């Protein structure tokens, strides 16, 4: 049977939300939102420097995908990576302290916003070169298969990276060797300032696997439940040894490409429309209240808790000292163990 890409047929949301699940998603998305807002603020204060790419608007993608994974599954992404790290349960304090370039950051202050990792949480970066994480994620999938585990690697990349040659070299090998990789294309509509239509001959990115016999699906990336439903299907497919799967998440970033982007390539009304009608957090909040899963008061308490958590992370990241000067010379090479 020929593999054909399709738009997601999964229903938009289940009829009745489960309380714990709904509140977890709400909480996780809100943590990313508030964290990123705070990061933006610290950037504005000069406490975070360099390039800083915020994930605001795209929270449902990582939150929904993470809900499909199990112990040992790997995650790798590009430089818009703060949300992914929080989703895979990395400590907000360590992430924020890396943003401020301090010793308690995940990379001891030596990586910054775009280059963070956690072996413990199986988060393999945080890569600064557009598309470079795609062969790497494919290689992580290769290592799973080589060792005979049933783990999969979720490899995230954006609509901009989707035009990189190495992505297709990876698709080819992943399909050829049935590697357990789920490629998640986070289509936030703009590669820096260039819209998908201006950069891509085929704008339906879920079809990009056709010539490699990789199934692809378009997903509403602003709906955490739609993400999770599609994610489960893709993850199950890859885990069962059938090979890679492509999910195109239609999503949107509210902020500029990076902090120094005035975002003049799109209209304010476009951003406002998405914010007002498609916001992943407001959308879930509406459903929670409508179905009386939780009260307004409970959600407010949750907001407060998150705010406090993010404030603590920010304070921590400012209190943490700069890395010791000795750290300049460490971690260039690993010591060779004597035989």
């Amino acid at each position: 049977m020929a593999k054909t890409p399709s738009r997601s047929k999964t229903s938009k949301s289940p009829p009745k939300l489960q309380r714990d699940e709904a509140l977890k998603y709400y909480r996780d998305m809100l943590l990313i939102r508030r964290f990123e807002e705070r990061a933006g603020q610290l950037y504005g204060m000069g406490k975070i420097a360099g390039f800083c790419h915020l994930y605001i608007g795209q929270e449902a993608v990582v939150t929904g995908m993470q809900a499909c994974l199990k112990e040992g599954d790997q995650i790798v992404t590009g430089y818009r990576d703060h949300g992914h790290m929080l989703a895979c349960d990395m400590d907000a304090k360590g992430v924020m302290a890396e943003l401020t370039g301090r010793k308690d950051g995940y990379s001891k202050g030596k990586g910054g916003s775009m280059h963070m990792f956690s072996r413990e949480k199986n988060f393999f970066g945080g890569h600064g070169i557009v598309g470079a994480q795609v062969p790497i994620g494919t290689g992580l999938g290769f290592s799973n298969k080589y060792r005979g585990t049933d783990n999969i690697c979720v490899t995230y990349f954006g609509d901009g990276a989707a035009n990189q040659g190495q992505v297709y070299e990876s698709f080819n090998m992943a399909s050829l060797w049935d590697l357990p990789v789920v490629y998640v294309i986070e289509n936030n509509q703009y590669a820096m300032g260039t819209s998908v239509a201006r950069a891509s001959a085929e704008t339906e990115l879920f079809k990009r696997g056709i010539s490699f016999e990789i199934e692809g699906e378009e997903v509403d990336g602003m709906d955490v439940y739609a993400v999770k439903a599609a994610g489960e299907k893709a993850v199950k497919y890859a885990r069962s040894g059938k090979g890679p799967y492509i999910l195109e998440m239609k999503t949107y970033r509210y902020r500029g490409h990076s902090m120094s982007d005035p975002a003049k390539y799109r209209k304010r009304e476009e951003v406002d429309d998405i914010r007002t009608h498609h916001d992943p957090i407001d959308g879930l909040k509406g459903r929670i209240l409508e179905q009386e899963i939780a009260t307004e008061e409970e959600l407010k308490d949750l907001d407060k808790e998150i705010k406090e958590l993010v404030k603590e992370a920010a304070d921590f990241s400012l209190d943490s000292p700069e890395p010791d000067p000795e750290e300049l010379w460490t971690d260039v090479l690993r010591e060779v163990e004597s035989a």
Partner: protein
Amino acid sequence: MAIDVLMPALSPTMEEGTLARWLKKEGDTISSGDVIAEIETDKATMEVEAVDEGTLAKILVPEGTENVKVNAVIARLAEEGESAEDIDDAPASDDSENTSKAQTEAKNAPETEGDGDDSDEASAEEGASAPPKPDEDSLTDPDVPEGTNFVDTSVRDALRDAMAEEMRRDETVFVMGEEVAEYQGAYKVTRELLQEFGDKRVVDTPITEHGFAGLGVGAAFGGLKPVVEFMTFNFAMQAIDQIINSAAKTLYMSGGQMGCPIVFRGPNGAASRVAAQHSQDYSSWYAHVPGLKVVAPYDAADAKGLLKAAIRDPNPVVFLEHELLYGESFPVPDIEDYVLPIGKARVRRPGADVTLVAHSRMVGFALQAAEKLAEDGIEAEVIDLRSLRPLDTATVIESVKKTNRIVTCEEGWRFMGVGAEICATVVNEAFDYLDAPPTRVHQKDVPLPYAANLEAMSLPGTADIIKAAKQVCYVK
């Protein structure tokens, strides 16, 4: 408590800007994410979004104000339950001044430190800020016991044996590349590996260097030990981003978490009559990069011992072979597990009159030159670098202190090359011992031509080394 709204920096370099317009007025309710003002810098106009929520109690910097410093308080928000009257309207708190002062200091600091950057020696003496150097005394070749049998082996087979031995020893070692399996290797270096280890561990790839180099890096991050063969290093230029940006830098950028034990190997440099795109020497390219080790052996014993070491090394190793050496045979000690240290040069011929430094195929030419020079009464000491990063400068310096003259020999271009690095080191560390300017032998500064006569003119050889050696000895 009132919340200060600060003048944001919109780029890493912004220090001040114009507050062009307020989009909210005093008394307005603000939610986080609301656009509250517009700021202009010399580069762009940008919107300021609120981070906190509350009521806009006081606007402290009116619209149209120019040169507003980053981090100045531009407004105050009243939180829930606070009234605007409670809000202090002092223009700027001490706190924000301290902040911007601290920032300025931080910005200045690296510049002053940067001045001392090229004085490696000075900082080395201080110890604390020196890069870790391998303990050179510990880098010794294993003893070859008396009576050891030496087996004539081609460089090709020595490399193959090294891979096979390491694959037997460690299940996580695998070989991948173009034509490495069924074809038995484009240059037959991986001959019979498929038969012994199967297609799980000897993997034929499509012709996609960028992709499979990156896949190898990912596999190394995932705990395997890939040996990635490039049919030649000329094709690795397609993959150089993954080699440098992903393999070499990630350990550092991850604060030591992400080791990348991978070997990138294949023939490097000129073959024979294959013209410019298939003939480049990449020694200096890779040796330039911290986070990589770069090995370039000459004979079969070194090829074997160093490749085994490279596969065991927890770091990315670029292993530069030479196509024109694959078929040459050398005695290889018949010792179980012959592993050599990476980072130690080998003195191939002792001599007191001039030091010849070479790596890879140029070692052969240097040895031939030394024989010829001896006929004229010049005793050359030939040093085979074996490893370019780390570079065993101690052995070179020690030799120059004895001979007082040095000629570097490389197949690549002179400009910014391996010889340049060695000569600079010699001038730094043995200046007073030199009796002649350090001299370099190298390829001519042109893309390698196809025509037989032009190719021969372009590539360095024994005659060039003899000429250079005589020149530094002031002998005609």
